């Protein structure tokens, strides 16, 4: 499981960084999204990978904390997803405006000669 997750994060982040360095705005935004996914998985994995451990305690019963997953990274990742979504949407708007104003989808607003 660790291996799959690690490879997944690596592939997502690696592709993201490559796309981020490309000259087209659409590639940049996809790159940023992919990096966002990689980072979100990374935050999640910082709570340690374990199966069959819910993050929420059951009320009433006496509980053994070792049977439960760390809820904090899961809460953090939710926040990060929401914020990442909002900023990506905002970036998309700027990208469209740039395309409309300059007539080019190059990140510098003009085609290289």
């Amino acid at each position, binding site marked *: 499981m660790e291996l799959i997750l690690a490879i997944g994060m690596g592939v997502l982040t690696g592709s993201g960084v490559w796309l981020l360095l490309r000259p087209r705005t659409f590639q940049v935004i996809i790159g940023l999204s992919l990096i966002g996914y990689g980072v979100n998985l*990374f935050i999640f994995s*910082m709570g340690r990978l374990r199966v069959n451990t819910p993050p929420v305690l059951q009320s009433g019963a006496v509980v053994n904390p070792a049977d439960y997953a760390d809820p904090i990274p899961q809460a953090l990742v939710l*926040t*990060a997803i929401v*914020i990442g979504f909002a900023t990506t949407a905002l970036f998309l708007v700027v990208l469209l405006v740039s395309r409309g104003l300059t007539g080019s989808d190059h990140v510098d607003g003009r085609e290289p000669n």
Partner: protein
Amino acid sequence: METANHLMMMPIVLPLATGAVLLLLDERRHVVKAVISIVTALALMVIAIALLHSVDNATASSATTDVYLLGNWPAPFGIVLVLDRLSALMLVLTSVLALASLAFSLARWHKAGPHFHTLFQLLLMGLNGAFLTGDLFNLFVFFEVLLAASYGLALHGSGPLRIKAGLHYIAVNLAASSLFLIGVSLIYGVTGTLNMADLAQRIPAVPAQDRMLLEAGAAVLAIAFLVKAGMWPLSFWLPAAYSAAAAPVAAIFVIMTKVGIYILLRLSLLLFGVDAGATAGFGDSWLLFGGMATIAFGAIGVVASQAVGRLAGFSILVSSGTLLAAIGMADARVTAGALFYMVSSTLTIGAFFLLIELVERVQDPAAHVLSVTMEAYGDDMEEQVPEQEEVGVAIPGTLAVLGICFAACGLLLAGLPPLSGFVGKFALLTAMVRPDPVAGGGVIAGSTWILVALLILSGLCALIAMMRAGIQIFWAPIEGTVPRVLLLEIAPVAFLLTLCLLMTVQGGQVMRYMEATAQSLHSPADYLRDVLSTQPIPGPNAPRDK
């Protein structure tokens, strides 16, 4: 203490509420919006000054650090707001700069696009929250709030030049936010906490095999802040984005580089200060040498820029580099000087950005085109500001007033007497070349001499660049194009420059505060005790026998 404690939350809640209310008002009601916005900015300044007083006057008692438990959970479990001398100082600085930029924008800029006032208030909320929070992840949230608002503001006024600079600015900051998250989660994975005080307590006990991960996390986190602060080689986006932004926006953006500086100052001393065991002093030499590289890059940029806007952008880099290098020295007296320098340079560059807009009206169009082509950047997309009718009182003797303000900015940037730029630089240099006799110092490191030389040379570069710009603008022949400058536009500039003058006159007082701030930063034990020992307020039904 009770009221002071609730007052502490106001710098976050007030702009949030104002921003929300302004969103509901129709765009056409400029006057109402402007009045609400400026009243809020005034109120924020009053609150910030009150908080500064309450922190400064709490002498012998335990409360040099005020702690506000959000959600009424004790410190490591709930999120806390922490107000100490440094946060209070930053709050005051933010509110002063905000008031000046907002007043300036009322002359014409606030009508140049939708939702200017809402975005501005949300930016203030993010800034104040970042200065007050005592929790790393909460810091991320406030960071995103201020960044999201700043994206909107950077594009305020539109135009191809702004869109292009804004696109780069957003992409860089989104990438930096990813690094921020990686750093925060690595630190959480190693230590199991996000509360800054709790982190400082746990870091000395981190086992040796995890230390590398912790340091990697801290380094990744620091890179996110260094992007904001503009350390070379992470700073190429900054001059373009700042010089393209509308004048009042650029002025408030000056404080945003200082957010990065503030966090680095706080975290490096809190987490990797004297008590941090094996990781003590982590990253200090990176900050020192990175800061020196930034000063050199900024100084060269200042001399090389033809457009005054870019000159101001590179001045920010010089200021950031100086502060980073000073943080890297990790010496309480250097920190005190650096704090003074930070306040002075922030006010100066803020005033300078506002002034540039006015000064550029003096240049006749031909000279302007010339300077743009000389600039080689964006020569084919010169910005076209639509001519707008301005209402208000124009000031007499425009050129004289603008010239005096410009000269004052030059003196402040170059660090020449008699203004506060000199006092700040002098305090920094004195602390550097006279090592602390108590600590048994006596030998000054070679790197310190290089830093001293760089500081003086950067002042010289600023002087040369400002003199050249001044001659081009004011002494070049102008044929009857004395611009109309409104009282409302020159007053904020004069206000900021007067504050710099006041800082010189009251230098002893201000320096005493800065020294107390630096002392408490360099001995974080009080901070830890105050944050971690604050008890929640018992509810009405809680048992009182504790």
